[in-house]
Every structure is written in C-alpha cells, then in structure tokens.
C-alpha cells in the first residue's frame, strides 16, 4: 500500500519526540478521526533550529510528520509556512489518494505551531490561504 520511502519514515521516524523548552507548538486533528499531530518548534532569530513531533495515526500520518519536520528544520518561519502538503507528499514519493489528508495535517500542524510562536511573541498570526485544505475532509 505504501512505497518504501513512506515505510522508511514510518518505521524510522525522524524528529519524533518532545522539545521541553519549545517556543511554538501546534496540534491538529482529533482522535475520532483517527489522527492527531503535534509539532514542537524551537525558533531562534526567525529560524527553526529544532523541531519534533508526536503523532497518533496511521502510517501516512507518521511518515508525513517525519518528512515535514525534516523539511522545515533550519528553515525560516516564512519558508516553513510555505511548505505545502503537496510538497510533503511529493517528498514521500507519493501517498495513496485516500491518505493525502495526512499530508494536509502536517501542513496544518506546522502552521498552528508557527502561529503559536508568532502570537506568543506579539506578532500577528498569518492567515491560511483559502481553500488550501479542501482535501482534508473527515
């Protein structure tokens, strides 16, 4: 069902865990739908110096979290914000169609964590692009 890349990230997740002194966290999804993603950010000088995730969910959810955190590590907040779910899915060399919403979840949880950092630091929360999450339907 999943390709080897997805399976690799699922079985050997990168950046799994908690950052005790995170300065931005975001959690999306809910247990009823079967997936929850929580992102921990350590931001210094507008750059993500560390990132960790915790995920409750299927193989695609774990792999998307793992891949997405790898992709934003060392990036500026703006660069991280612009990471699309499509880019995550592509980096994973594809997800089954019914699993694309997992990559959306990754995008959303990163956005949530970034805006958490921003609002905590007196900045305005960025706005989601409209309709960008059309695929995430439960």
């Amino acid at each position, binding site marked *: 069902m999943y390709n080897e890349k997805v399976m690799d990230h699922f079985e050997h997740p990168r950046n799994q865990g908690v950052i005790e002194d995170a300065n931005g966290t975001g959690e999306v999804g809910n247990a009823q739908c079967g997936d929850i993603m929580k992102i921990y950010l350590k931001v210094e000088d507008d750059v993500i110096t560390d990132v960790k995730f915790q*995920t409750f969910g299927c193989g695609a959810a774990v792999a998307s979290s793992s891949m997405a955190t790898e992709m934003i590590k060392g990036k500026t907040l703006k660069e991280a914000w612009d990471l699309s779910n499509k880019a995550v899915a592509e980096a994973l060399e594809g997800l089954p169609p019914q699993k694309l919403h997992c990559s959306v979840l990754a995008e959303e949880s990163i956005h949530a964590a970034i805006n958490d950092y921003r609002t905590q630091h007196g900045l305005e929360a960025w706005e989601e692009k409209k309709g960008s999450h059309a695929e995430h339907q439960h």
Partner: protein
Amino acid sequence: MNTEKRLVYMDHAATTATRQDVAEAMVPYMTGTFGNPSSLYDLAKVSREAVEKAREQVAVAIGAEPKQIYFTSGGTESDNWAVKGIAFARKAKGNHIITTVIEHHAISHTCEWLEKQGFSVTCLPVDRFGMVDPADVENAITDETILITVMMANNEVGTIEPIAEIGAIARKHSVLFHTDAVQAVGHIPVDVGAQNIDLLSLSGHKFHGPKGTGALYIGPGVRLDPLMHGGAQERGRRAGTENVPGIVGMGLALSLAVADMAENAKRVTTLRDRLTEGMLAIPNTYLNGHPDKRLPNNVNVVFEFIEGESILLLLNRWGIAASTGSACSSKSLEPSHVLIACGLPHDVVHGSLRLTLGEETTAEDVDYVIGAVKDVVQHLRDMSPLTPPELRSQS
C-alpha cells in the same frame, strides 16, 4: 525487534489457505474431468456426480438435506441472494426486513439498497458484547415483516448470536429467518433444523476451502427470486455453469473441517485464551466482543492512545498478518461499525486489533505474537501525543 522473525498468520477470519489435499482434489476437475455437469455425455456424468457428492458433504455439515443446498460464488452472493431473493419474491406480502447493526456489509449494504427500492429496514442494536437480544427481534416484527436476517457469529468481534431463539421467534410469527453463518460453519456446530433456520449463507474460503465458492441453504417451502437468472443449473434456482472444481473443493474442505471440529475448537480455544491474556496484560487494553460466547479463534482487543493501521504495519514487519477496525485501514475511511455498535467511544475505536487463529497456530506463535504486540504498542504509544506519561518508556 530482537526476536527471530517468523511468519504468523493471524487473519483466518479474512481468509484461509486452501488445504493442500483439497487443492489436489480439485485439479483433476479442471484439466481432465472438465465436463459441464448439465450435459448428457459420460464426461459430464463424472462432474455431475462430483457436484452431488459435494452437495451431500455440505448438507451433512449443517444438518440439511442435499437438495436444500445451492452452490454460489461465495458468502457475498449467498447473502445478496437470500435477502434480495426473499424481498422481491415476497414484496406483495410485505416490505419490512429486520436486521442488526453488526451484520457484514454483504447484508447491510444489500439492505440499504433495498431501502432505495422501497423496502423498510429495521436495524436492531446490540449490547456491549455485540449480542442481539431476541426480545428486540420479537418486538420489531410487524404485519409487514417478510424477513429477519441475523448473523450467526460476528466476523470482527467473534460474538455468537442466539440464533436458535431468534429462529424460534421467527417461526412463531411465520416470518422467514436467514442467518449469515460465514464465520460459523466449519468452526462451531450448526444445525439448520435445531436452530430454526430457513436460509443460511456459507463461504468456502473460511474453512480452508477454495475462494470464490459458497452455498445457500434454502429450507423446505421457501420461495425466493433468483439473483443469477439464466440457465437451469441448480434446479433452476442459480444459473451459471457450475464451478465444479470449486464445489468439489468446498465440499471436501467442509467435511474435513467438521470431522476435526470439536477437537480443533478445543485446542484453538486454549490458544485464544492464552493470547487474550497476553493482550490484556498490556495496560489500557480491553477485550471486544463477548467474553465466552465467541468464536474459538477470535481475539479482538482495543489499545488506548494508538491507531490500528500503524499496529498492522509494524506487526507486518514482525511477519504477523492481522486485521483492524480502524478507519485508516479501510477503503471507505469509516471505522468499524461493529465496534461502534458495541458502544466503543469513537476516539478509541481506531486502536483495535483483530487476531484470528487457525488450525496450524501453535503456542509458540501465540507467544511470539504477544511479544511483538507489546513491543509495537509501546513503540506507538511513545510516539502518540495522547499517551499519559506513566505509560511512556523510561528513556
């Protein structure tokens, strides 16, 4: 994953391997004795006799007469035929069908389709063990009721339903009674007479027979429309050139399954209980289905804080084949309607694991699975944002 990897098939409720001896018995009817049983030459006669022998083997296994057995392409066809066949044949009498929330989709989706055709369907609830209450069945019967369909044993949680009682109620009210016995036949005793059954579905590949084979038992005097219209095969009730090798294989497999049933069930039940114990030793883990009125081979548990598809994927790396009721692993993205019907909260239902044992399962397999599941559950709980601190690894 520090243990030696082995292959452990724990999904016998999904399908079973065709027995080697059964497969070998089928081959001659493919290549040599391939005649169409409906023809009149000698080659056909051998096929015909083989089909009739299988019919008798199936009949004996469920306490029926050979002429009451009709061969189909599987449990799904038998279910569709029984329910649609009765509905269309009796629509002048009434339009009401009684079923339950825990039926296999072969029944529930058929009923939903019939609702679109103007039939009215009552879907009875179950208790937290997945058990139907016969009193609910009786209360649901109206003057319009033409069919009651309740499965004999549930494929997910393994609960065995009070079929004889429900059958007696149906008979008392002169309503026809169908049971989907796909998970039961070959595994627990079935007797259409003693259990007051009018129609019964079974499927060959659930008891080490071939895939794509099944049968419908149709009791005396029961009239129903065909699902397969066409030639005069199966005494005009089920058209289509007979799958002779498949029929031969199913008959043989069932007769072998029934011969070993008592002994086998005893052995498997012991292993099942050992496995259940091993699972319940994992904290925040609960058994689904009935504690003892359940199939000898079924273990179904739910682990809090984790998701089933992930469990399966990791177990697969241990060489273990299993199943889950999680939405994430189902193509419809709906979590198990059976677990929901048993009252499992929506946020827990995703963490279920079904392990179904078979004749070849050993105690070593069971212990290996217990070890693997423990490891996998801990791994996933460590990853989950929901897991409370006391359940996390000390690392």
